């Protein structure tokens, strides 16, 4: 492909991704006692490798980043390092029951020890809440909707993986991030790029969550079950529940990778598909994808409504070949792949920088909305379920 056209295609997709946040904002990191972060991590180091690890790595990144300032008077944003998704079951799943109290306790601490919270009631503070439904702090959607976003975080900016339009748990102005996927592990499974892509559609995962929803219909709103029932006999669809050791290699040999919703609409499959150059087929109505203002998801992936799942094969085979090749070219853009990752140490253009870019784009703060007049109070400190008010 001629170099000129190559550059044009890449440049058009990559400008915002390559913005450098350094110099555009200043972040002050609160020094919380270690019971909010370090001690929790010590108790369970699995928190560093599961898909919610972004909250921990974000903290570490900010501590050593050039955007960090030790002078809170000149800070634009304030970050509270509280690891709310690190209370794990023996199986490794995070329990969200204590998270609201933990968050509340942290906010009480910062509002009493520093004046900056009361100045704006949190409007220039941001929190990383990577759990299933973000700051609703529950894994079950109905319960999460009932709880709603924690009332104390009403004015703060939330950095979360969950994103769905018109949903209680997605606040206006939140920044959606990808779930954590281990960068080194994916690097070690790369295969030569000239290996021909011979699988048409690839998916590995559950179709029915037999433990919690044996008849189907609840899990994934029935979409995954529909995929299985309609396409289990189709030779073009390489789908199954087995977990092969060559999972990453197989993704690199596939043209399309299905990314259907599960109990929550987001999944690490999206990150894996982008890294391995497989066009993501997103089956989740009204989902809000990570860094949607910087990454042109419509041009990279294929969006299929849940009601159209039975016609998935018709939809995918009727995409013109040129469109498919263009999507693959955009996916091959290294800045796209970099934006999905949380590498250690941080690299330019990675997800940490995209979060900072997102925060920088929200500056300057609106004087009227953000800064409160003296004596003005908006937050209700006693709102929410009674259990939340217990001290942590």
């Amino acid at each position, binding site marked *: 492909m001629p170099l000129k056209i190559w550059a044009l295609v890449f440049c058009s997709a990559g400008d915002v991704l390559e913005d450098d946040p350094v110099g555009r904002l200043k972040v002050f990191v609160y020094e919380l006692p270690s019971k909010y972060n370090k001690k929790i991590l010590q108790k369970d180091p699995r928190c560093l490798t599961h898909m919610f690890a972004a909250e921990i790595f974000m903290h570490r990144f900010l501590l050593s980043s050039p955007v960090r300032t030790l002078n809170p008077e000149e800070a634009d944003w304030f970050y509270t390092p509280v690891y709310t998704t690190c209370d794990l*079951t023996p199986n490794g*799943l995070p*329990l969200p*029951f204590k998270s609201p109290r933990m968050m509340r306790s942290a906010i009480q601490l910062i509002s009493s020890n520093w004046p900056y919270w009361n100045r704006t009631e949190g409007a220039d503070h941001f929190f990383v809440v990577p759990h299933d439904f973000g700051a609703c702090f529950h894994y*079950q*959607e*109905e*319960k999460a*909707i*009932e709880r*709603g976003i924690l009332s104390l975080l009403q004015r703060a900016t939330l950095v979360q993986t969950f994103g769905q339009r*018109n949903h*209680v748990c997605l606040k206006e102005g939140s920044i959606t991030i990808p779930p954590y996927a281990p960068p080194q592990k994916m690097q070690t499974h790369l295969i*030569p*790029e*000239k290996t*021909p*892509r*011979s699988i*048409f559609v690839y998916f590995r995962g559950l179709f029915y969550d*037999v*433990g*919690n*929803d*044996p*008849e*189907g*219909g*609840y899990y994934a*709103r*029935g*979409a995954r*079950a*529909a995929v299985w*029932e*309609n396409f*289990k*006999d*189709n*030779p*073009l669809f390489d789908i*199954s*529940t087995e977990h092969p050791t060559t999972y990453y290699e197989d993704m690199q040999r596939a*043209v399309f990778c299905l990314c259907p919703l599960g109990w929550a609409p987001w999944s690490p499959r999206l990150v894996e598909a982008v890294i391995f150059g497989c066009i993501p087929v997103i089956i989740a*109505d*009204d989902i809000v994808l990570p860094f949607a203002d910087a990454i042109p998801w419509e041009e990279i992936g294929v969006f299929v409504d*849940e*009601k159209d799942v*039975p*016609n998935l*094969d*018709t939809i*995918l*085979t009727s*995409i013109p*070949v040129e469109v*498919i*090749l263009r999507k*693959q070219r955009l996916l091959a853009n290294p800045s796209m792949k970099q934006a999905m990752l949380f590498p250690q140490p941080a690299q330019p253009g990675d997800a940490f920088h995209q979060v900072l870019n997102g925060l920088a784009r929200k500056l300057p703060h609106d004087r009227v909305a953000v800064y409160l007049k003296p004596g003005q109070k908006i937050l209700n400190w006693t709102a929410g379920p009674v*259990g939340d008010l217990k001290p942590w």
Partner: protein
Amino acid sequence: MKLSALHQSYLNRRSNSFRGPAVDASADGGMKSPAAVFWLALHGLCCLISLVLGFRFSRLVFFLLFSTSATNLYTAPFRPATEVSDVSVSHLSTPVANQALPVNKTTPRVVVGRHGIRIRPWPHPNPVEVMKAHRIIERVQREQRAQFGVKNPRTLIAVTPTYVRTFQTLHLTGVMHSLMLVPYDLVWIVVEAGGTSNETASLIAKSGLRTIHVGYKERMPSSWADRHRLEAKMRLHALKIVREEKLDGIVMFADDSNMHSMELFDEIQNVKWVGALSVGILAHSNNADESSVSAAEKEADNPPIPVQGPACNSSNKLVGWHTFNSLPYVEKSANYIDDWGTVLPRKFEWAGFVVNSRLLWKDYDEKPEWMKDLALVDGVDDMESPLVLMKDTSVVEPLGRCGRQVMLWWLRVEARSDSKFPPGWVIDPPLEITVPSKRTPWPDAPPELPSIDKSISVQEQMVAVKRPPKTRSSRSKRSSRSKRKHEARTVETQVSAKQTEQN
């Protein structure tokens, strides 16, 4: 207390019992309202009825109540409770979901709760779409090759010496199919001993490749040594054609009984002047009985397949050659083409070399000095490899990761000299020959009938026991069924073979 109950329900998420949202909601705030009490009582009643009936009848009730929404209704066979059921109902049940919807927001498009599993009436692949998908895959792979594969691929010039004999079709078809799969431009030079024949011509015409079919005046001799010599001469003849026509590309030697892998054709594009490849030697022996024991002993000492090709030092520079050690096979080697002994390769095989065709041209300015002119080697009797054309053999480039990758295999297998085969392998007119059996009269009673049934039933039992746990139920059923048929068929053929042996 409450917390531990919720904790318990979360842990049960990974076990078999499902605490549905109805239970959670009711356990949450205690007796909230008459509506909650009513739903709880109804839920309890339904549970009791289901226990009595033996299946969850609530779906059936809803199905009957709301069957007016038939447009969205898909039916599927009602499977037993052990398998995952796919009876689909297209509306939303569980009124608790409606309670949970926020009051002060516009109702979102996506609703929480139980949804139907949409299955289209004919959930099977559509052949037209399958073909479209294959074309998409083909195009994607072509694009991949263009981006990551060889840039500016050169034309391949394949040289094949052949002659008409029983196994010609077998061997030549193999080579032909390999060459047809090559994604680059190709010129196939077929040199035939004994002059061109219609058989060979019709065979290679099926390939659709650009072919140059020439005849060589001598007939193929019957001893292997002579055959190797003649083949070398035929290859030189082909090289002369390359020289005269000034064909531009890479010359490779595809002997008709060799096996080539597709990576070979990608790898030889990397050659600059003369390259050498590792060739796996399949020196088999026809004597299955007597040499099997000694062969087993030899396998313990020797490597499994001998490989002939370039030898490199640790800095990937050519330092020597690996050649075939023919000493173990000397007694059992074949001399004549239809002998039963092992057919041995020579020290070097032409197949393991590739040559840039420009080296063969008459007046090529950039020809390096170590390359002799083709006309000078005319009279030389025995040419083992293109190395005779070079004054200095150290400039040969080792290909395939310095010879570590074996991408082609050498084999010589021929039929008995008195073997008869129909011309063109077409039986025309169809056979209608009555041949008397060796033993007359033919015995009336079919022998050993009970043992056939017994062996089939034993096979069936074994198949039934060995059935693996199903992840895809229909597929494993299909495969075990066909396995059963296959076992029956093999048993029958075995029995009939035994019969003929007795006769």
